[in-house]
């Protein structure tokens, strides 16, 4: 019976029912939009927006090129010499006064966003990068559109992440997701973009981020292809490795490419800090002087080195240059890209790297064919391998370099020459240039970002490196306290492992056994006397850092065989872990 004045029972229950009903309705939304899943869905949108931005970027760049240099494939006339210089002045003013953050490598800025600025890339940088890169590359500066595309993608993702108020953890990761989308759209190569971002920006394989990076890259490429077509970047004539002995020829290309990469990165590493250190007023003229130099080279008969130069890579692959010309173009492109980049003109080095590699590959092919006319590899094959070789040697991303070549050509039959060439180039480059170009630039900019190459090659310590054989006897849960007491009396150590039935481990200290015996519980079995808390166990291949929290909580952690869980391989304690780390430090 309800009290007077109180609402009837069904009416009092109604709000409660309404709340439950609302909860029932919103639960699927709540489930669907847990942050992890929401982040994945957001990655698709990041891919779409990045692709649209990259498409606009490419159109704008092409429009600028046509307006400034004309529609002919080999531009000629005075404007070829003057356009890059004049635009260089405008770009310098924009960089120095309006968009100061656009100077430098987009890869490093994305990395800095990830490691330093909690994923923050100002939207202004995106606009600045778009504008200045369009002007610079469109006017013929020897730079590529991929690095700006990467940064545009990363910047858009960062802005979107901030707008939807992602957690700091996710916001930090969103820039690489956008970077992958931007790069995938620029290269029309989703796998290479994912690998590059994992290899160079994030630096570790993490299942959590991998899904988002892949989704954004794929959605970006799908959108980009719907606008600009799905053809590979280069049309490769049929190519295959006919005789395995010819791998030697590709090996030589790898060595030459590695050395060229060293020259290229040394030139940038040497000139960039010196030009940056010059008085500020000179920085207004640096891009213009670089532009004038490049324009002069173009005016003197080598307009191929202007801009990204993809159409000339295509021509080189179709055997349209003599090997001498290819060699000259490779050398001039190194000079042109170096001056463009060190002058602070925004733009990337991916396309120039590919250009230099392709020309070098073609030139090496020409020389080798001259000396050994029986070689069967086509010029296109050498150009492709050359592209991979420079990518591996200069950008020091060996995995990306292999997949990039395969993806941009759509030709998987040349994987063996590519792997051989790239590996040699990477080894040569490492030998003569200890710091990869991105690390070098980071340090020149006064930042201390993790060196991903070092991380990659760091020795991983494992449990097997620190474990030791058990010091005392292994007790059984079904033996009596008295038996255990007698066994531990003759042994060293203070804590002993107890094997539980049917499986599992626990531990007992010498003091505990002595105390149990003193209480007169000597005839009781250990299982009934000691605490039944099971110990966690480790396996020998576990990383040592995994062992540390367990070793902190337990005096002794059993290390057991993965194939036979009853087989004890050893034990590990906190002291063992610390001693192993100390040993590394001392070494």
């Amino acid at each position, binding site marked *: 019976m309800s009290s007077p004045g109180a609402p009837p029972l069904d009416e009092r229950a109604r709000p409660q029912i309404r709340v439950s009903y609302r909860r029932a309705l919103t639960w699927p939304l709540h489930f*669907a939009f847990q942050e*992890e899943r929401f982040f994945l869905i957001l990655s698709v949108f990041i891919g779409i927006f990045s692709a*649209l931005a990259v498409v606009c970027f490419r159109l704008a760049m092409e429009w600028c090129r046509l307006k400034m240099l004309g529609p*002919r494939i080999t531009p000629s006339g005075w404007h070829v010499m003057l356009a890059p210089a004049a635009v260089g002045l405008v770009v310098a003013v924009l960089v120095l006064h309006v968009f100061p953050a656009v100077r430098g490598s987009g890869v490093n800025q994305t990395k800095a966003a990830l490691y330093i600025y909690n994923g923050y890339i100002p939207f202004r940088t995106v606009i600045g990068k778009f504008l200045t890169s369009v002007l610079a590359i469109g006017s013929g500066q020897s730079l590529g559109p991929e690095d700006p595309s990467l940064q545009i993608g990363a910047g858009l993702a960062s802005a979107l992440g901030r707008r939807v*108020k992602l957690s700091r*953890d996710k916001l930090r990761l969103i820039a690489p997701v956008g970077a992958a989308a931007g790069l995938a759209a620029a290269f029309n190569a989703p796998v290479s973009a994912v690998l590059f971002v994992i290899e160079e920006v994030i630096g570790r394989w993490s299942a959590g981020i991998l899904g988002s990076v892949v989704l954004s890259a794929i959605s970006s490429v799908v959108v980009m292809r719907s606008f600009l077509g799905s053809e590979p970047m280069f049309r490769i*004539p049929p190519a295959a490795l006919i005789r395995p002995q010819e791998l030697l020829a590709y090996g030589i290309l790898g060595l030459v490419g590695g050395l060229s990469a060293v020259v290229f990165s040394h030139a940038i590493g040497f000139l960039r800090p010196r030009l940056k250190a010059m008085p500020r007023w000179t920085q207004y003229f640096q891009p213009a002087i670089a532009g004038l130099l490049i324009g002069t080279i173009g005016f003197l008969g080598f307009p191929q080195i202007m801009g990204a130069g993809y159409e000339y890579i295509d021509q080189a692959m179709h*055997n349209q240059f003599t090997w001498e010309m290819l060699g000259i173009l490779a050398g001039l492109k190194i000079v042109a890209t170096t001056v463009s980049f060190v002058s602070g003109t925004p733009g990337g080095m991916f396309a120039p790297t590919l250009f230099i590699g392709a020309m070098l590959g073609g030139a090496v092919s020409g020389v080798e064919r001259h000396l050994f006319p029986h070689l069967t590899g086509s010029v296109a094959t050498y150009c492709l391998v050359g592209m991979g070789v420079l990518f591996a040697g200069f950008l020091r991303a060996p995995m990306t370099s292999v997949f990039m070549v395969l993806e941009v050509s759509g030709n998987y039959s040349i994987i063996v020459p590519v792997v051989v060439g790239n590996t040699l180039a990477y080894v040569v480059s490492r030998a003569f240039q200890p710091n990869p170009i991105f690390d070098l630039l980071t340090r020149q900019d006064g930042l201390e970002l993790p060196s991903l190459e070092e991380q990659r090659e760091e020795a991983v310590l494992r449990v097997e490196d620190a474990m030791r054989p058990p010091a005392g006897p292994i007790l059984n849960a079904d033996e009596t306290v008295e038996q255990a007491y007698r066994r531990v009396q003759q042994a060293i150590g203070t804590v002993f492992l107890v094997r539980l039935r049917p499986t599992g481990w626990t531990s007992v200290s010498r003091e505990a056994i002595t105390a149990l015996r003193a209480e007169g519980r000597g005839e009781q079995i250990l299982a009934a006397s000691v605490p039944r808390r099971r110990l966690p166990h480790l396996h020998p291949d576990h990383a040592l850092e995994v062992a540390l929290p367990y070793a902190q909580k337990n005096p002794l952690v059993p290390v057991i065989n993965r194939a036979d869980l009853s087989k004890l391989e050893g034990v590990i304690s906190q002291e063992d872990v610390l001693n192993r780390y100390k040993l590394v430090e001392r070494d």
Partner: protein
Amino acid sequence: MVSANDTMGLGTENSVPSGRREALILFTLLAISISALAAVSALVSRFEAWQNRLAQHMKQQGELAFAAGQSSLAITFFRSALTFSRNDPVALLKLAECLRAENRLDESEAYLHTLWDREPQDATVNLELARLATRRGQINDALRYYHNAIYGIWSSAPLHNRIAARFEVIEFLLRQNAVPQAQSELIAMQPDLPPNSHLHTRVAELFQSIGDNRDAESEFQLALKLDRRNVPAAAGAGRAAFRLGHYRTAILYLDAAVAKARPDQETEDMLESARLVLATDPFLRNLSAIEREERILRAYRAASLRLESCRKAQSAAPTSAGLNGAPSSTPLENLVARERQLRSQMRPALLDRNPELPAAAMSFAFEVEDETAQLCGDPAPLDRALLLIARNREGVER
């Protein structure tokens, strides 16, 4: 795991239940995406239209340069056109053509293979590849590509283009001296020929050039059926009939040709020879006995004179036998001996009485003409007529 509610901020601040906000965000993003896709799509369309115009302009410039014989400049224009529409088959094809003209055969082949990989049945591409192979003297490849072109897909005027390709392959084969293959191609072409007098004439001329006068004559006749005023066909038919030994028919056609246009020397000679053959041949049907005897006697006399003059010319020239002083028994002396034997019998009365004598006389005349033609150069018209009768007889007998 940090829940979305805790981290998204807005969810708690705006007291919107968790999940709704995200749904709203995604809906908004979807709407923005659709709008942005539409806007970029419009932008791309406009840009592509502009690029297409540039590409067209470059192609036109390229064609003008190529037509003016500036292949190198044309290559630059076509390459520029291809930077705007890299798959434009017309520009690719033209570029390959220019490169072939510049003798940059490898480059040309690379572009053509790109096109061929895309559409192996494309007749134009196959034709270009065939031309490239002919430049390289690769007969098998050339034939393969020519046949692909003939049986391939033409974007316009397939019949006309197929016939043109067939003519091209025949001419290529003739240049390579592959006469049987050329003849096969001509025979294969015959059923496909449309009722066009000039085409039939061209085919007939090609048949004639490989010595197939029978097919040539029938093709010329077809051409004349289609166009009676076709002078080359009439002359060709006359020549073919003449070579086949159909002198009456030859005179008919050659007369017609001569009547319609000023004849060339060869046609005139042929007409004269044909007339002379008909006036000289004693083996023609419907001749009276007297007429036949007169012709045999005339032939014998002409042969004797030819033999005499040839013998004199030969004896005037020093021979190896003469120099050695040793007696020699040449075919010419044998013929002189036979002439001496026949001389006394060559009278109409004796020809009537001895049925083997006319054949012996004509056999002598033919042998004389044959031998003297080899030894003593150009014969007189009557001798030539006798020679033709001899060869015609020989053919008939064989």
